[in-house]
């Protein structure tokens, strides 16, 4: 794909991510911190988010699968996931976490399992979108262009 179309595709794709609520302003804040002295900053932070989240999702599955559910533990994990998703601007993941914490408070196992499914869904969605975004950035740079700045 030629550079112009790549850049247009990047702009459309990024705008949609924000419009559809996958990402919020916190992500933009991270993009603004990226510069020549820190050229991979966003990728590094997001990669940490992927690693952290997948570990937490596994833990959540395990904890909710017990005979007697330790809701304090579940809540602690959800709190962590909510925190890290907020820190990178993964808005939809963060929002599901908020609902998830309510289910924990109510000690509602079914509710929690539903929330887990939802948060997992939202996480994998935003993960795939971010991976596409990074791929587009790489392609643009490889084609000798610069990544459009949308802020």
């Amino acid at each position, binding site marked *: 794909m030629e550079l112009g179309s790549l850049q247009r595709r990047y702009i459309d794709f990024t705008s949609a991510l924000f419009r559809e609520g996958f990402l919020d302003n916190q992500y933009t*804040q991270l993009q*603004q*911190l990226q*510069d020549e002295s*820190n050229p991979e900053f966003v990728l590094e932070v997001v990669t*940490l988010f992927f690693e952290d989240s997948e570990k937490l999702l596994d833990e959540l599955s395990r904890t909710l699968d017990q005979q007697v559910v330790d809701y304090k533990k579940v809540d602690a994990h959800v709190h962590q996931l909510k*925190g890290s998703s*907020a*820190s*990178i601007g993964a808005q939809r993941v963060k929002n599901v976490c908020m609902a998830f914490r309510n289910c924990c408070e109510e000690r509602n196992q079914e509710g929690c399992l539903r929330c887990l499914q939802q948060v997992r869904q939202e996480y994998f969605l935003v993960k795939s979108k971010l991976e596409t975004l990074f791929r587009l950035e790489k392609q643009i740079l490889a084609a000798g262009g610069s990544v459009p700045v949308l802020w």
Partner: protein
Amino acid sequence: MSSVGNGDGCCAGGSDGGQRHVLAVDDSSVDRAVIAGILRSSKLRVTAVDSGKRALELLGLEKKDVSMIITDYWMPEMTGFELLKRVKESSELKEIPVVIMSSENVPNRITRCLEEGAEEFLLKPIRPSDVSRVCSRVLK
């Protein structure tokens, strides 16, 4: 190198011309990376550790070098509040300004931290503008 970001380099250079050194404490790898990135874009030297225990170890070795501590509140084993107390109770460390971060807006937690000597209490997610504001006040 100049930064294209919001960081306005307000905190560059101490009186000895060297970079100010900030100790960041957070058990979340994501938040550690974010806070380190924000601080570095303000031209600060950053050491990021994952626990209060490690923070105290580092402070034991390099206390004269640390200009500010910024710590998460909720951490396993030692909370940011407990770290704050240990710093303020130490004759060697008590002058070091401590900033607390938390994702939860709990008024009496905030009051307790400020009463214990915290410079400021920041709500997460931390933004570059929050850090700029704190740094320009704390790191003169």
